[in-house]
C-alpha cells in the first residue's frame, strides 16, 4: 500500500477516490486501521468489484491481506456472469495493479508525434492543455471535429463529456472491428442485437453449432461455464473451423472448412433445413416474413454444391443439419463475436440469424433468451447541444446500415486528402490501443499526423500512448469507483465496483479525468456529482438499495417482472423490425441497395508460397492489454505461429525455431515469432494468437515477444453495409533471415 505522501495532492475538482474524511466510505478510510473498520462496519478483508479485463464484467471480491495489500480476486457467487468463478485474466487482475510498468504520471509531448519524447506534467497543466486545444478545435472547425475512440467502463464518462462538448463522433472499435456485423445482422433480422454478454442459452441447449467461435480459447466466462454444463447434459457440439480448436476437440462433429467459404455451408444448411421440412413450421409461420423468397433463393444451394466450395462432404452437411433439426428449438447457431473477416460478414451473420429463426431457437429455451436489466436513473444533466454534423456526413452514403459510428470511418475522416465532408481534428482515445486494434497501421499513423490534438487515457504505456500529445494515466479498476454494472442477463442485476486500494502513483480514475476536463471546458453541469460514489449512492437509493448495502453484497439480483425469459406458447411477440416480424428476407437491406438474402461470394486465396493469416484468442490473455501482466506472462509470454507439418517440412522449419513473417504487401513483422509445428492447422493457413509483438520498450515483460498480427493485416476488406473491417484476407510467407537493412527499417 503506497503512502499518502506518494500521491500528489489532487486539486479539489478531481477528489474522486482520494476523498479523505468526506463520507464514511471514502476509499482512504477503508484502508486504515482495523479498529476504525469495526466502527465503520465495513469488511476490511474484501471489497466488491467487477472485472475490467474484458467486456464480460464478472463481479467478484478483492481480498486483501491483514496489512491491507491486495491479495487475490475471487468471483461473487451471486453473480450470473461468473457464478463465483473468475477466468484466468480476472484472477490475474492483481497483476494489473502490481505491474510496475504502469503509467504513473501525466505526460505532454515535446517532440514530434511518435518519437515518444515526453515531459512529466501536473494534472492541472495536462488537463488545461487538452481543454485549451479542444476549445481551439471548437472555434476553428466546430466541436463536431472531435472524435472519441473508447472501450470499457470509462466510455460512459468520456461519451458524456464529448456529447456535452458538442460532438457525437463516439466510436467503439468493438463495433467495426469486432461485433458490428453481427449486431446489424441480428437487428435487421430479429430487431434486436445479441448483447454483451451474448444471450445464448447454452446451458440448456441440445445442439451447439460453433461457426467461427472458438469457445474455450476465447474466454467468455459464462459461455464456457454453460458449455461445460451442457457437456454434462450430453450436448452435441458441431464446430466449423479450419483449425482444430479446443471446442473442436470437444465436438461430436468437426467440419474442417476451407477458410472464407462459411456462407456456402450456411446456405447449404438452410437448404437442407427447408427442403427436408426440418424447420419449426409453427414458429416460422407465426413469427417470420419472407420464407417463400428464402426457399426460392436457396433452391440450388445443395450440400453437393457446398462440398465443391467448402471441402466438407455432403453427407456430413446433411448429418449435421439433421442434428440441428433434432435438437430444435434447443439449438444455437452461435453468432460468435469477432466476425469481421471478409467484408461480407453482415451477410454471413444474416445467414446465421436466418438459420436460427428457421430452427425456432430465438426466444426459446436452449436457444436465445430474452434478457432483462435493471432500470437505473441517470444523474440529471442539461440537454446535450445538437451537433450540426455527425460522422455520417464525412462520407455521405457510406455504411448506410451502421447504427453506431464506425471507428475506421472516423480515422479516414481525419485524413484531409480523403476530402471528407467532416474533417476530424482531434482524438480522445480511452482504454483502447488503436495501433493494435485497427488494421492497416500505416493509415492510422498517417491520420494521426494531421490531427491538432490526440489524447490517450490508459493504464499501461501501450503503443497508442507513444503517439499522443498528452498521456493521461488512469488507475486500474481495482483503485476506483465506476458506474453500476447493469448488463442484461436472465435476471436483472446490478454490480458495484469499489476501490480495493488507493490509486497508485499519480493516476486518477476515468470519471475524475473526464470531470476534470469538463470543468476546464465549463461543462461542469454535465458532471453534477463531484465524487463518483456520491452519484452511486444517489442512484442506488432510487432503486431501493444504497451504497452501503452494495458494498456488503457486491451484486444485487431481482426477479424478472414477468415470466418472459422465453416466448410463451402462442405468445404474440412484436419484433422491433419494420414489419413487426422476423425478417428472413430483409427489405431493410434491399431498400439500402444491398442483397436482402445472403449470397456466397468467393474470396481471394493465398498466392503460391503464402498462407492465410488466421488469428484468434487464448484464454490466458485479453487482446494485447494483458501481455505485460506478470501473473499472465507466467502462463504465456509470447505467441507462436502454427504451421502444418507438411509446410514446415517443405520450408525446413523445426518446432521452436524463430522466424519472421512477411505479408503480401511486403510488410515484415518487427519481431520474430516461435514456430509451432502442429497438425491442428490446415496446410493453406497459419494461426497465431492476437496481442503480442509489442514494440514499446516501457512494457518490459512483453516488449519484443512474439509477433503482432495487426502489423501484418494491411489489406482490409471493408463491409459496405456497416463499415466492418474484414481482416482475414492477408497472406504471409516465412522469412528465416532478416537482412540488416530490413532489421534497421
Amino acid at each position: 500500500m503506497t503512502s499518502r505522501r506518494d500521491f500528489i495532492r489532487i486539486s479539489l475538482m478531481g477528489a474522486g477516490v482520494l476523498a479523505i474524511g468526506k463520507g464514511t466510505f471514502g476509499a482512504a478510510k477503508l484502508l486504515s486501521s482495523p479498529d476504525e473498520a469495526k466502527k465503520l462496519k465495513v469488511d476490511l478483508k474484501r471489497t466488491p468489484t467487477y472485472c475490467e479485463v474484458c467486456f464480460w464484467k464478472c463481479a467478484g471480491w478483492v481480498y486483501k491481506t491483514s496489512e491491507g495489500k491486495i491479495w487475490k480476486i475471487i468471483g461473487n457467487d451471486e453473480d450470473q456472469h461468473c457464478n463465483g468463478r473468475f477466468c484466468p485474466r480476472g484472477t490475474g487482475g492483481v497483476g494489473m495493479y502490481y505491474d510496475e510498468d504502469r503509467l504513473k504520471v501525466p505526460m505532454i509531448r515535446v517532440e514530434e508525434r511518435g518519437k515518444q519524447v515526453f515531459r512529466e506534467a501536473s494534472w492541472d497543466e495536462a488537463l488545461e492543455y487538452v481543454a485549451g486545444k479542444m476549445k481551439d478545435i471548437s472555434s476553428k472547425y466546430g466541436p463536431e471535429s472531435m472524435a472519441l475512440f473508447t472501450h470499457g467502463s470509462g466510455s460512459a464518462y468520456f461519451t458524456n463529456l464529448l456529447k456535452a462538448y458538442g460532438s457525437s463522433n463516439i466510436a467503439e472499435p468493438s463495433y467495426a472491428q469486432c461485433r458490428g456485423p453481427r449486431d446489424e445482422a441480428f437487428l435487421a433480422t430479429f430487431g434486436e442485437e445479441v448483447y454483451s454478454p451474448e444471450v445464448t442459452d447454452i446451458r440448456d441447449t441440445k445442439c451447439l453449432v460453433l461457426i467461427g467461435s472458438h469457445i474455450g480459447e476465447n474466454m467468455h466466462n459464462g459461455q464456457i461455464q454453460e458449455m461445460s454444463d451442457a457437456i454434462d447434459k450430453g450436448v452435441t457440439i458441431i464446430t466449423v473451423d479450419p483449425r482444430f480448436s479446443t471446442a473442436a476437440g470437444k465436438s461430436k462433429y468437426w467440419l474442417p472448412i476451407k477458410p472464407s467459404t462459411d456462407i456456402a455451408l450456411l446456405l447449404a444448411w438452410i437448404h437442407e433445413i427447408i427442403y427436408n421440412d426440418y424447420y419449426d413450421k409453427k414458429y416460422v409461420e407465426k413469427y417470420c416474413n419472407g420464407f417463400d423468397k428464402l426457399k426460392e433463393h436457396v433452391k440450388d444451394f445443395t450440400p453437393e454444391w457446398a462440398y465443391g466450395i467448402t471441402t466438407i462432404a455432403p453427407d456430413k452437411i446433411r448429418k449435421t443439419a439433421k442434428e440441428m433439426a433434432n435438437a430444435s428449438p434447443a439449438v444455437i447457431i452461435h453468432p460468435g463475436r469477432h466476425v469481421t473477416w471478409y467484408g461480407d460478414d453482415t451477410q454471413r451473420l444474416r445467414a446465421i440469424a436466418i438459420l436460427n429463426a428457421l430452427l425456432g431457437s430465438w426466444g426459446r429455451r436452449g436457444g436465445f433468451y430474452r434478457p432483462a436489466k435493471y432500470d437505473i436513473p441517470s444523474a440529471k444533466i442539461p440537454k446535450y447541444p445538437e451537433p450540426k454534423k455527425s460522422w455520417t456526413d464525412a462520407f455521405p452514403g457510406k455504411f448506410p446500415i451502421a447504427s453506431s459510428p464506425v471507428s475506421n470511418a472516423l480515422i479516414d475522416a481525419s485524413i484531409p486528402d480523403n476530402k471528407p465532408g467532416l474533417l476530424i481534428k482531434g482524438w480522445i482515445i480511452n482504454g483502447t490501443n488503436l495501433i493494435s486494434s485497427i488494421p492497416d497501421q500505416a493509415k492510422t499513423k498517417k491520420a494521426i499526423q494531421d490531427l491538432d490534438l490526440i489524447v490517450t487515457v490508459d493504464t499501461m504505456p501501450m503503443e497508442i500512448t507513444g503517439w499522443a500529445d498528452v498521456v493521461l494515466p488512469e488507475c486500474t479498476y481495482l483503485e476506483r469507483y465506476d458506474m453500476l454494472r447493469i448488463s442484461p442477463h436472465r435476471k436483472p442485476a446490478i454490480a458495484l465496483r469499489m476501490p480495493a486500494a488507493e490509486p497508485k502513483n499519480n493516476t486518477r480514475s476515468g470519471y475524475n479525468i473526464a470531470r476534470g476536463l469538463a470543468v476546464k471546458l465549463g461543462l461542469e453541469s454535465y458532471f453534477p456529482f463531484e465524487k463518483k460514489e456520491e452519484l452511486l449512492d444517489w442512484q442506488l437509493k432510487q432503486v431501493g438499495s444504497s451504497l452501503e448495502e452494495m458494498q456488503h453484497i457486491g451484486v444485487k439480483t431481482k426477479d424478472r417482472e414477468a415470466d418472459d425469459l422465453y416466448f410463451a406458447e402462442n405468445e404474440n411477440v412484436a419484433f422491433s423490425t419494420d414489419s413487426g416480424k422476423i425478417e428472413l428476407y430483409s427489405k431493410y437491406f434491399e431498400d439500402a441497395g444491398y442483397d436482402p438474402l445472403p449470397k456466397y461470394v468467393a474470396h481471394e486465396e493465398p498466392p503460391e508460397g503464402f498462407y492465410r493469416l488466421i488469428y484468434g484468442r487464448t484464454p490466458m490473455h485479453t487482446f494485447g492489454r494483458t501481455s505485460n501482466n506478470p501473473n499472465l506472462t507466467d502462463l504465456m509470454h509470447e505467441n507462436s505461429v502454427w504451421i502444418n507439418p507438411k509446410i514446415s517440412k517443405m520450408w525446413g522449419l523445426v518446432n521452436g525455431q524463430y522466424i519472421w513473417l512477411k505479408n503480401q504487401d511486403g510488410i515484415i513483422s518487427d519481431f520474430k515469432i516461435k514456430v509451432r509445428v502442429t497438425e491442428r492447422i490446415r496446410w493453406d493457413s497459419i494461426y497465431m494468437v492476437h496481442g503480442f509483438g509489442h514494440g514499446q520498450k516501457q512494457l518490459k515483460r512483453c516488449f519484443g515477444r512474439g509477433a503482432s498480427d495487426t502489423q501484418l493485416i494491411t489489406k482490409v476488406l471493408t463491409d459496405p453495409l456497416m463499415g466492418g473491417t474484414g481482416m482475414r484476407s492477408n497472406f504471409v510467407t516465412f522469412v528465416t533471415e532478416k537482412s540488416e537493412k530490413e532489421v534497421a527499417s
Partner: protein
Amino acid sequence: MRYAMAVDIRKCVGCSDCVVACQTENNVPHGFCREWVVETMNGTYPQLEIEIRSERCNHCINAPCVRCCPTGASHFAEGGIVLVEHNKCIGCGACMASCPYDARYPHPDGYVDKCTFCIHRIKSGLAPACAAVCPTKCIYFGDMEDPNSNISVVLKKRKSKTLIPEAGTKPQLYFLI
C-alpha cells in the same frame, strides 16, 4: 480420510485458471508454478484428437518424496496430503529428484515447495483454490473414504486414469476420461 482430486478432461479447456488462482492464493513466486496444464494431440489433419489435463502434485499414497526426505520435512498430513515443513527442509533436492511427475520446485527462499491441496482452505471447509475457480467445474475434490463426497460419486460413475501408474507411487489425482 483420504483426500483425492479428479479432473474431468472432457470439460477442461486448458484455460489455466487453476494455475493463476493457485498462484494468487498461495503466493507462488513468479516464474514458478505448483500446477500446470498439458495438452497432448494425436493424429493427422483432419483426423485429430486432443486431450487437455490440469496437473499438479498427485499426493501419492506411496510417495517417493516422503520416503527419500532425510529430515522428514516431506510428510503425510491429514487425509494423506503430502506437505513440506519449511523449517525442516534443508533444500537437498532429494524429493525433487524422486518425483516422477516433477511436481516440486525449489522456492527462492530455499525450501522445496509444491501443491498442498490448499490444506489451509480445506480446514475451513472450502475447496482448493483450483477447484473453486475452475470455470468448467471440471476439478473435483474430496474424501475418497466418504461414499457420498462428489469425488467418490464421480469416480464411481466415470472411467478414470492416473498418470504413469507403473511408477508405483499410487497417485491420487485421477483423470476422468
